[in-house]
């Protein structure tokens, strides 16, 4: 394996806009809101930025092509701004661009910013979109919940889990995230729900009810990264470093062969193994303090716990019901409220997750702060659908 990214790049500052139905804001304003927090946190001036990456998921309701909209909105003079799109991993992809630029020495200080204006769509849920001329002739034009709901049928069939029991575990996932989100002033949904409300909600895509689905919102988040040496020279003491960044894309094995059984994410398992190796993690359930995973739907979070090797295969539903991932559990998951309560402005999500992990590592998470100091914090994104997707995993922790 390559040498990897561990401890080569430090996070200098981060920012996150208030997520929600931001009827008042354009993407420009959301980006600026996140950026100003980050630049103040970093303690640098804008001209010190050498390069920037902009992550966005949808074009039609967003900033339009290229990185220019970020350069204009943030007035980033005379630097290259690269727009990246990689489904729901777009935010993490923008961070990867900035991190790799710094690690290579091509940039001293780089910016990653992600934004999405989903509430300009006119309806709830993600916009329907094409997947290219060939796919559009032979693919299913389903919704995101419909694509991910299939996990539940395959999971319960494979592991012999009773349908109602799995539904209860899925409900627990959402109840837990709403509890956490209620403590987060930047979350979109801050209401507490109970298990009955989750279980009895209207059906969206069998077996996912309304509360099994994440919110839909506008938002932006950003990170400014540099080398540990520069961070130190700027007076930073508690330095948070990148420990691993892995992205794995499906190559068609799941969708076209007959080996994959539909109950898990092949890409996440590969990305997790690579990320753990890169970060030097050998016992994930003991060494990972916190996870922010891609809980677009409750069932996604549930199976991801197995794909990250934090739950034994076939046991995540049990671990969920036993509170292992609650805020006071062994490995809290979505301690900030997750996609469930932040919603999922595609380009922003990956960076929003890293933002929470960053705050937790620095002890700046307020009411949500984990008492025992976290060591390694993992964030994870999934884009596409279970049968064909991109999965990203980032691990951050205190600089060694």
């Amino acid at each position, binding site marked *: 394996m390559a040498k990897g990214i561990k401890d080569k790049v430090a996070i200098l500052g981060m920012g996150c806009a208030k997520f929600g139905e931001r009827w008042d804001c354009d993407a420009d304003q959301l980006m600026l809101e996140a950026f100003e927090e980050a630049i103040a946190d970093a303690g640098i001036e804008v001209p010190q930025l050498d390069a920037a990456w902009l992550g966005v998921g949808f074009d039609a309701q967003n900033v339009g092509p290229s990185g220019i909209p970020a350069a204009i909105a943030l007035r980033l003079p005379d630097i290259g701004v690269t727009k990246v799109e990689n489904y729901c991993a777009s935010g993490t992809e923008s961070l990867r661009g900035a991190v790799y630029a710094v690690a290579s020495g091509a940039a001293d200080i780089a910016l990653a910013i992600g934004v999405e204006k989903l509430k300009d*769509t*006119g*309806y709830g*849920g993600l916009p*329907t*979109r*094409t997947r290219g*001329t*060939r796919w559009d*002739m*032979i*693919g*299913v*034009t*389903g*919704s995101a*919940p*419909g*694509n991910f*709901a*299939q*996990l539940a*049928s*395959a999971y319960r*069939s494979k592991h012999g889990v009773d349908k109602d029991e799995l539904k209860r575990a899925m409900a627990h996932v959402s109840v837990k995230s709403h509890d956490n989100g209620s403590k987060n002033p930047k979350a979109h949904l801050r209401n507490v729900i109970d298990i009955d409300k989750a279980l009895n909600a209207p*059906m*969206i*895509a*069998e077996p*996912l009810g309304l509360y099994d689905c994440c919110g839909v919102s506008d938002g932006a988040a950003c990170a400014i990264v540099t080398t540990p040496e520069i961070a130190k020279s700027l007076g930073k003491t508690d330095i948070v470093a990148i420990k691993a960044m892995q992205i794995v894309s499906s*190559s*068609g*094995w799941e*969708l*076209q*062969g*007959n080996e994959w*059984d*539909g*109950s898990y994410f092949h890409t996440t398992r590969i990305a997790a193994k690579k990320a753990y190796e890169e970060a030097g993690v050998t016992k994930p359930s003991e060494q990972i303090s916190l996870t922010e995973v891609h809980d677009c739907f409750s069932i996604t979070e549930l199976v991801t716990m197995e794909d990250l090797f934090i739950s034994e295969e076939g046991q995540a539903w049990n671990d969920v019901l036993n509170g292992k991932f609650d805020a006071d559990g062994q490995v809290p998951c979505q301690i900030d409220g997750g996609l469930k309560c932040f919603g999922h402005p595609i380009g922003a999500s990956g960076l929003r997750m890293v933002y929470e992990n960053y705050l937790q590592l620095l002890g700046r998470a307020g009411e949500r702060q984990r008492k025992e100091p976290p060591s390694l914090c993992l964030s994870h994104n999934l884009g596409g*659908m*279970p*049968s064909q997707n991109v999965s990203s995993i980032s691990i951050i922790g205190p600089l060694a």
Partner: protein
Amino acid sequence: MKQKTGLLSYGIYVPRRRLQRSSIYDSNKWFAPGLRGLAKGEKAITGWDEDPITMAVEAGRHCIQGIDRSIVHSLSLASTTLPFADRSNSGVVKEAMNLNDELSVSDRSGSLRCGTTALMDALQKEQTQLCLAADRRKARAASIQEMNYGDASTAFLVGSDSDGDVIANYLGGHSTSIDFVDHFRSSDVDFDYAWEPRFLRDEGYLKILGSTITGALSKLDIDASDIAHAVIATPARGVPQKLAALSGIATEAVADTLIANIGDTGASHPLLMLATTLQNAQPGEKILLASFGQGADVMVFETTQHLSKLNQQQANLATVAIKDDNYPRYLFHRGLIDIEKGMRAELDEKQPGTSLARDRKTVLGLIGGKCSETGEVQYPKTELVFNGESRTAGTQEDYPFADRSAKVLSFTADSLTYSPDPPSYYGMIDFVGGGRMVVEFADIENDEVDVGSDMRMVFRIKSFDELRGFRKYFWKATPVNTKTTSTAQETS
């Protein structure tokens, strides 16, 4: 010496849903109380994703199951409701059935008897022809036609002893052509305009069809009393019996008009009645087929000893009917009411002609690939095999999936995505023999699908491009019905 020409096989497709006529009447009785007399029984109706092309494919597949497709030299599709005015409708059927490119295809239309005329033409040729007929007619709400019209398709494979076992020999036929307008439908309108049924009965059926039947019997020198089955496709109560009596055919020989449980299925109807009659016929029986439409076609067949074997085979594929009393859904699927579909329905469905041309076999024929180096099969075909085991490009040979059975691996019922018939069922299926796909499911009723369910593929409309008047076709998976019934006896 010319070999004996006749029918080699038949195929039937009657959609599963049976709209209860009482549901039509109950909604419309405030306006049209006179429909009460027709408010009995049920009629077969297609889903939103079916049209004469997809229906014909289904009947055609039923017809040629187990038969070497290379014996088919030509294909005709008869219908008064063909979706395309300028794109060979029969050509689409040919693609979906994976028939040879070196095939002659023809669309037949213009009259309710276009199906029998095409059949008669085929019987007079020496080549093997697949004759398909299908109709999906629109009728205004609260009309007599709405009560009567049903949807179905029929297929006959016409050929000689050299192509297979002839199940019914063609003894000959007789036609008349008279511009008798009891009803009409212009090319640019959706609905029929019809004179009172008594005019059609007295001046059309009894006179024109009556004289064509007697003319045929006389021309072929066949004694009317030798006719064991009189398939007289006149969907008017008592008329077939009256015509039989007029021409000397025993009234017991008159075939069921299928109106009670299927409805009048337009251009397909005479052929549907013939096929269902064959299902119940014995070897060595003479069958008279009579159809009407600006004149008449009359043909006479004699069944052979090969009929019973085919009947056994064809009965195994019949579908189980399902009672349906959702009249508003029927109206919506026919385009008769405008429902608020929501913004999700606004997706631009433009189909590039270029990509359809490139992927014609992948899309319309459900042809995947089999790697000549690794033996792996996959859908769709790609330059490099899916698992990367071979780095050689272009190793994949055509591998058809349409007739392979499959099992559900995962699925959902999606209430969020736009579907004209929500929820939209779809999921991943594994084909027996390898290969898989994520695909929409068709005709799911009452949660009858689960992980492990047996599925078969059906050719359907994928979506409509309403902006440009195009419709996209693709394949969907539908549950295999384990119960079997004879289509003619389906009462749901």
